[in-house]
């Protein structure tokens, strides 16, 4: 009974929204591709996609590498290495991404004399923040591989490096692939925060258009759809990779 009401509400609410959209409250003309100005507005908005994608991909690549390098000491038996892992993860994880972006862009130049452009400041902040989570994901993945695999590798005299590279990581990565996909989705969304330091990505473009067109509802709705499409593409890409990796074992 209650379940049915909830369902009704879930279906009706967006419908009502759409219906009111037909009234004068909506002004879809700003993004109507059949008019020249609407089309150019749409193109303007879509042009941010390149930076959003480039920034997210660069950041995730860096964070995966850094995350792995932080995860490995965490698995060591030596206390010093282990505490390096804990300290890194706890500190980096506790800084909000937006704060980190502001700190890297405005703070770091004063501290170090190194001035990063908006793109690299954004990438660095995103990657740094994500690396703590990647480290935890890798640690969990590597820990899920049984002791017997290490012993077998040792019994054929493989070095630590080769054991990781050829035996442990290929199995661990297969297991954490869904989690890595999650992080990529998260990264795409969080990259919108880099708009605050002036990065010309999807969110920044939308903001700029809102300022000139005064149509936040329509423009931000398009922005939502842009992220939705991007993330659906990424999700299906990750699924494809998972299937492919499973198939390669058959």
């Amino acid at each position, binding site marked *: 009974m209650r379940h049915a009401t909830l369902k009704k509400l879930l279906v009706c609410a967006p419908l009502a929204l759409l219906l009111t959209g037909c009234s004068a409250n909506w002004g879809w003309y700003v993004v109507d591709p059949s008019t020249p100005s609407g089309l150019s507005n749409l193109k303007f908005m879509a042009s941010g996609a390149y930076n959003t994608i480039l920034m997210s991909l660069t950041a995730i690549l860096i964070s995966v590498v850094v995350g792995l390098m932080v995860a490995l000491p965490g698995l060591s038996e030596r206390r010093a290495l282990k505490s390096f892992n804990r300290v890194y993860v706890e500190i980096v994880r506790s800084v909000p991404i937006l704060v980190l972006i502001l700190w890297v862009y405005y703070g770091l130049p004063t501290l170090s004399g190194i001035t990063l452009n908006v793109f690299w400041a954004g990438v660095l902040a995103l990657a740094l923040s994500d690396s703590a989570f990647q480290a935890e994901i890798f640690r969990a993945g590597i820990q899920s591989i049984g002791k017997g695999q290490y*012993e*077998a590798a040792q*019994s054929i005299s493989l070095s630590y490096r080769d054991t990781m590279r050829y035996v442990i990581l290929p199995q661990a990565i297969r297991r954490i692939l869904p989690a890595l996909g999650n992080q990529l989705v998260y990264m795409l969304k969080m990259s919108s925060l880099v708009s605050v330091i002036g990065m010309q990505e999807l969110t920044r473009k939308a903001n700029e258009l809102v300022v000139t067109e005064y149509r936040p509802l329509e423009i931000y709705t398009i922005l939502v759809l842009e992220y939705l499409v991007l993330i659906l593409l990424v999700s299906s890409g990750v699924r494809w990779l998972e299937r492919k990796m499973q198939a390669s*074992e058959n």
Partner: protein
Amino acid sequence: MSETNGTPLISIRNVSKFFGEFQALKNVSLDIGAGERTVICGPSGSGKSTLIRCINRLEKHEKGQIIVDGVTLSDAPETLEKIRSSVGMVFQQFNLFPHLSVLDNLTLGPRRVYGLSVKDANARAMKYLERVRIPDQAHKFPRHLSGGQQQRVAIARSLCMEPRILLFDEPTSALDPEMISEVLDVMTELAVSGMTMIVVTHEMGFARRVADRMVFMDQGEIVETAPPEAFFTAPESRRCKEFLNQILNH
């Protein structure tokens, strides 16, 4: 029997090993000559697995000395490399690398440790797969093989490192009864070919056929050492008699 000719290949002297408070090995001494086939038996928890795991240093002993092929075991990385390439090990749970094909399981060690080319490593792998009589399974993945086939692959993987000594840690205990003999047959052939073998097993028929010497362990100590005929017909100690009664009369 053959430990008399010159220095032994493996020399274990007064070795003790603790797991926390529990003493797994109590002052164990044992010499094993080149080409000798030793079968270690005893009730579970008697320290037999621990003893052979100390020989290739999967476990570290705390007291005493283990000399393998002229190398005294210590924490030094060079010694570890040396003994691990001269000592192979076959595990109860096979511990094959599930993400690699049978062929890749076999060639990983020779390629990474000995620097063999793909072609040479493949040739070597096929040679040993023929020896364990499953050359036609080379391109399958471990999980597509039966338990007996997997264990034979594991034996071939050890042989590919061309070790001087092979350790077997209850190699048939995880197998269905109908698969035990195919593994024991391969092991018997190895014994006939002159490989130095130390086998922890409850397969007393195999022990009788193949062993030069029986070692009976209980509660972390070597209780009795004897040639198989004497061991099975006239065991000296009470504990050994009880054990043989339990294992043979069921």
